[in-house]
């Protein structure tokens, strides 16, 4: 009899739980909002990313969080289309570049960052920025050397007369051009002619 009462009580609590749904979700959203309000995400500009891709200086992975259809329409070189983040698939020492709409990017950034992936950066202005600054860049009249330098990147050019220092990830958190603490650094290329099998 005692056991039957306990079983009935357990089932009653279970049924109430089904209708209660997700009581903690509101709190989860509060935490997300607090994170967004107090933490500025590290960003990388389309030009910097393009330079990293062309020079192969950074050991990075580009994660495209958009839908499969949009990814198939246009995507960044080497970008991986993912719909669910499985953390074990990513290396904390690698730079992770997030591309996608604001909400998806924020959620992914929060998940990575709160799990110790401090090398995660967001592509500034997303695919729109990539299109405007890299794929179809505009050059104003009477461009200076710097503007010519940037536009030439689009055509894999190497103009003379302007020397650009190594690209860095803009870190709004620290307000400097260096990555935030724990952020991934561009990886130096090995000197040519080295050994190896």
């Amino acid at each position, binding site marked *: 009899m005692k*056991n039957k009462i306990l*079983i009935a009580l*357990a*089932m009653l*609590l*279970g*049924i*109430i*739980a*089904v*209708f*209660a*749904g*997700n*009581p*903690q*979700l509101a*709190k*989860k959203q*509060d*935490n997300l909002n607090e994170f967004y309000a107090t933490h500025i995400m590290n960003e990388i500009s389309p030009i910097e990313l393009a330079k990293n891709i062309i020079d192969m200086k950074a050991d990075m992975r580009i994660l495209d969080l958009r839908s499969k259809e949009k990814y198939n329409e246009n995507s960044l070189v080497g970008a991986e289309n993912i719909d669910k983040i*499985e*953390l*074990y698939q990513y290396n904390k020492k690698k730079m992770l570049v997030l591309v996608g709409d604001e909400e998806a990017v924020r959620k992914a950034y929060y*998940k990575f960052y709160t*799990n110790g992936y401090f090398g995660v950066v967001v592509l500034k202005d997303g695919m729109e920025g990539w299109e405007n600054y890299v794929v179809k860049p505009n050059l104003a009249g009477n461009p200076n050397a710097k503007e010519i330098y940037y536009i030439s990147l689009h055509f894999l050019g190497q103009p003379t007369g302007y020397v650009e220092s190594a690209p860095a990830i803009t870190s709004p958190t620290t307000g400097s051009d260096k990555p935030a603490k724990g952020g991934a650094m561009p990886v130096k290329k090995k000197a040519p002619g080295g050994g190896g099998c």
Partner: protein
Amino acid sequence: MEIMAPFFPNGVFGDDMSLVMALLIGFGFGFSLERAGFGSAKKLTDQFYFKDFAVLKVMFTAIITAMTGLFFLSWMGMINYSQVFVGKTFMMPQVLGGLILGMGFVIGGYCPGTSVVAVVSGKYDAVTFLLGVTFGIFVFGQAFPMLEDFYNSTDMGVVYLYDFFGTSFGVMVFAVLVMAVGMFVAAEWWERKLAKRSAEVQDEK
């Protein structure tokens, strides 16, 4: 209503009091284990021979009590569930660690917690077991640089069952409760069957 719990993260008490609370909870936990008979290697290993399901029943009771308690206190706004620490899942290291712990449990008759309870209640075999545990911790510590990559591998982050199965928290609570009730009923049925068989064997003798 202002959320009070969990107490430590919300500053209800400080570092010193948290240590006192941990000590009191530890005493309470040890006392409960001892009273449940878990200071006996025979009682514990009978679980693995399907002779006594006390371990399974006690552990499942602890799980569903904590789960429903957290769920409903969170639902009533008395606890901020998102502040409750949940460890990360490292799939492969934890599967291997579980197997090693299980083997040690079957061979030695105790798990680490119950071995401490048994030592306190004066069991000599538990002293040997606890020395083995200490030695194992020392070896693991020394070998850690070699094991570190594996130790940190297959990091899945914090994974909740309801996220993994794509259900709501409430549905998962219901599913675990159904599983627990099913397990209790099956264990009781098996124990009754076993007792009946023993009685028949006794009668034949």
